[in-house]
């Protein structure tokens, strides 16, 4: 029941970013739908929708206008677009409460760099949820002789990599290990005014808003971590930074986009990480009928 209250409060928090009319309509959804809702979607010229496990459902008949999208942007930034400029360049904003607002539209490019959006055409308000205990069933498998083993979480987008990564970070940190998090997109901790909006444990340090590779090197120098965590290894520089961390005797915790391990190994950058023995455990996520299943595989390098 407590969880249902939490999920509904997250839904209500995210719906507060919507223009008044749709916010009111969202409140009339039944509790089950509120608990399962994943995103609000607004596209110009189309009705606003809420994304549920069985697809998108309309929040009203009126089509979204540019004014509505600007209202969402203004609400999400607290009328301070300049203060979120860096993340907006990457197409998203972290709003109060840890909700992430993805943006689409005509990008403004100056000196070869995206500065923001001239005209917004769509927005996706992600109803970010902490699922404390999501990793309970697999935590024991991530340790050997009391030592936390470097772990890679692999799944396609939308399967819950970030959710389980956040819970593992929280649990590992609460066991007493110093965890440093390179949170480039601010999605793991969702820091607002210096305070994390998501619980990442008692011994966790976070750098957000800068490249993952840069943040890892900075954290290694400044925070003396025992575990380094990052969401989504996407660039060779991320892989290099993780190798540097591993060479310092730090355990790693990261995620990667792929259907499964063989799909991951088909990509040279990830193959290098896996075959180099950087990770000792690989978690894969299966999503069936809206439920997530986690499988932990022992990984000892290319031989496996």
């Amino acid at each position, binding site marked *: 029941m407590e969880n249902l209250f939490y999920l509904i409060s997250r839904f209500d928090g995210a719906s*507060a*970013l919507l*223009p*008044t009319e749709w916010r009111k309509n969202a409140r009339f959804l039944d509790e089950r739908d509120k608990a399962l809702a994943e995103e609000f979607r607004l596209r110009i010229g189309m009705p606003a929708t809420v994304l549920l496990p069985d697809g998108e459902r309309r929040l009203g008949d009126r089509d979204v206008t540019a004014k509505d999208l*600007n*209202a969402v*942007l*203004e*609400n999400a*930034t*607290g*009328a*301070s*677009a*300049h*203060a979120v*400029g860096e993340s907006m360049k990457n197409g998203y904003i972290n709003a109060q409460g840890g909700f992430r607002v993805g943006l689409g539209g005509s990008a*403004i490019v100056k000196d070869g760099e995206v*500065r*923001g959006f001239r005209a917004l055409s769509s927005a996706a308000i992600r109803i970010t949820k902490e699922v404390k205990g999501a990793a309970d069933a697999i935590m024991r498998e991530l340790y050997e002789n009391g030592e936390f083993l470097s772990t890679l979480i692999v799944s396609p987008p939308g399967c819950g990599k970030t959710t389980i990564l956040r819970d593992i970070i929280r649990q590992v940190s609460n066991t007493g290990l110093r965890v440093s998090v390179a949170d480039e997109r601010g999605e793991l901790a969702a820091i607002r005014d210096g305070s994390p909006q998501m619980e990442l444990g008692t011994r966790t340090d976070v750098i957000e808003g800068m490249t993952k590779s840069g943040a890892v090197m900075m954290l290694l120098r400044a925070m003396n971590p025992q575990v380094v965590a990052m969401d989504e290894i996407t660039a060779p520089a991320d892989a290099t930074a993780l190798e540097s961390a591993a060479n310092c005797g730090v355990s790693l915790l990261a995620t990667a986009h792929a259907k499964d391990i063989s799909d991951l190994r088909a990509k040279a950058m990830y193959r290098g990480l896996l075959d180099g023995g950087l990770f000792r455990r690989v978690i894969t996520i299966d999503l069936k009928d809206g439920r997530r299943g986690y499988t932990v595989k022992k990984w000892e390098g290319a031989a496996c």
Partner: protein
Amino acid sequence: MLRLIGAVIVVACTGTFGVSCAMRLGLRARVLSELIAALEVMRSEICDRLTPMPDLLETLAEQTNPPVSRMFAGCLEGMKSLGNRSFYFLWKTAVEQTPELELTRQESQTLIELGHVLGRYDVEEQRRSLNGVIRRLEGYLKHAQEEKRVQTKAHAALGVAAGFFVVIILI
């Protein structure tokens, strides 16, 4: 004797009226000057420190003097309804609901237009708009100071003269 007392009262009243008109000219120049200083702080906070709007409004409400502080405090109070109302509306309302600013229609309009840009665009765009508004307010300030210099004595003298005129007619 009564006539004399009455005459003094009339002259004092009209003279006070003239002086208060002169003082309003001084107040307008002071308000414009304070608004310019506040917008310069706003420019630095937005463009150099990327300060979020609620924090910025709070700082300005604390650092400025009335009636300018009341305008920023009013806008900050309005921020509670952001989401139901646009920032432009809140800014405009704050300017309009602070008549003590003694701004002319043109000056108010200049300030209100800033609400279209504040917090909405990137740093450079906001810097450009703030620079433009500061320049225009500086122009208004010069005009207000000149007006004050020329008209202060005139208002006071006219007030007293009007009093004597009324007294002469009545006597």
